[in-house]
């Protein structure tokens, strides 16, 4: 019954950048296995910085981050295997010169043997419906396709936890629906999901939980329907339906 134990634990996390910018000032957050958490908040409130602590891309002295029980600071390598991350800028995360090579990058770093890598890559590409583009050069893909490749790259590493930083930015309507369907099928398969966005409209209807950040702190945390009420005050737009007192509706329906 693991679905109830916390797989991610953040306690009293603070972070100040080298130039003195205080990005996080005391974050406490605990995410259960299989949960789908949406994090919202104004520009510069610390979302990306928080996410980068989850797999040890940034380590801070004050505060603790644990990925199912093990401190990230103690074992960043493990944290990076457990926590797959899709970045805000789809282009910046392309590593390989073909889609296949790009997806294979992670498994190669895990030192798996070739056949295992091949199986994982083909499976991952199939999962995001990109098999036919395996030999394509990634930078020629559309925004939506690039995001799918990024997700495949994570799937190939078999990370149980997925972190997506603004996965919808610059995507058109079909692109958003594509990525959204991807995300939901991952959720159904038991992945733990953490997603940041400025447009709650696009995803909130499917989330288990909404976390609102502001000035490097967590302002609100709870079930979407209730937490989203009057969220405008925190620099996030409350979805139209919710404004009208209606239930949140999905972009997929």
């Amino acid at each position: 019954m693991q679905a109830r134990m916390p797989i991610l634990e953040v306690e009293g996390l603070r972070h100040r950048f080298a130039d003195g910018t205080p990005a996080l000032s005391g974050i406490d957050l605990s995410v259960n296995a299989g949960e789908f958490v949406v994090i919202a908040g104004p520009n510069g409130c610390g979302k990306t910085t928080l996410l980068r602590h989850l797999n040890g891309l940034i380590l801070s002295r004050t505060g603790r981050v644990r990925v199912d029980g093990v401190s990230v600071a103690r074992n960043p390598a493990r944290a990076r295997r457990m926590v797959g991350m899709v970045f805000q800028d789809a282009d910046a995360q392309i590593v390989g010169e073909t889609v296949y090579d790009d997806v294979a990058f992670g498994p190669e770093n895990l030192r798996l043997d070739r056949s295992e890598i091949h199986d994982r890559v083909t499976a991952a590409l199939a999962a995001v419906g990109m098999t036919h583009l395996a030999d394509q050069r990634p930078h020629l893909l559309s925004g939506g396709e690039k995001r799918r490749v990024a997700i495949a790259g994570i799937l190939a590493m078999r990370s149980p936890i997925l972190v997506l930083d603004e996965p919808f930015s610059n995507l058109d309507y079909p692109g958003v629906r594509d990525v959204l369907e991807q995300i939901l099928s991952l959720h159904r398969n038991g992945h733990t999901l953490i997603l940041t966005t400025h447009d709650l409209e696009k995803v909130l209807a499917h989330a288990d939980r909404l976390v609102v950040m502001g000035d490097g702190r967590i302002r609100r945390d709870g079930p979407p329907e209730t937490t989203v009420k009057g969220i405008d005050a925190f620099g996030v737009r409350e979805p139209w339906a919710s404004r009208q007192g209606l239930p949140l509706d999905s972009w997929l329906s």
Partner: protein
Amino acid sequence: MTQSQQLHLTVYASLFAALIAAGAYLAIPVGPVPIVLQNLFVMVAGLLLGSRWGLAAVGVYLLAGALGLPVFAGGAGGIGRILGPTGGYLVGYLPVVFLIGFIAERSKGRIPFDVLAMICGTVVLYACGVSWLKVVTGMGWSKAAAAGMVPFLPGDVLKIIAAVPIAKTLRPVIQGKFQDAGADAYSRG
């Protein structure tokens, strides 16, 4: 050096290799040797990456070209290009970037030294480039110099002038990665 800093330098060196290739792509033919921005990025690589990683950048560039990637002036690579009329410049980039890096490492970003380094580098570059051009085409020295050096000197002066502010703006960006981040972070922020 931490693994992360190692990776930063690896990526930066690859980036400079790519910049050198991009600088070669826009080639204006003026005889057997074209006008390119290639050598500008070779010089900047030396100034910013230093001798060792500058050498790595040029080495990777030449390797990619030798294997046939179209990274040399006007596209089309291959060992044939390195043995071709402009091969002297290509191979010459190795000592050039090393020399510039060597001087820059010791001059702590003082502009006069940067300029000096680039002038020395350019001298070495033409020493290699022109003599090989002479060998391949069988021209005399004067002809080789006329075809392989004179037309480029104004452009190269321009490049050296431009390299100074580029190095000035990017040094903090790069060296920021290599002095221990203060405040709360004890890894790169």
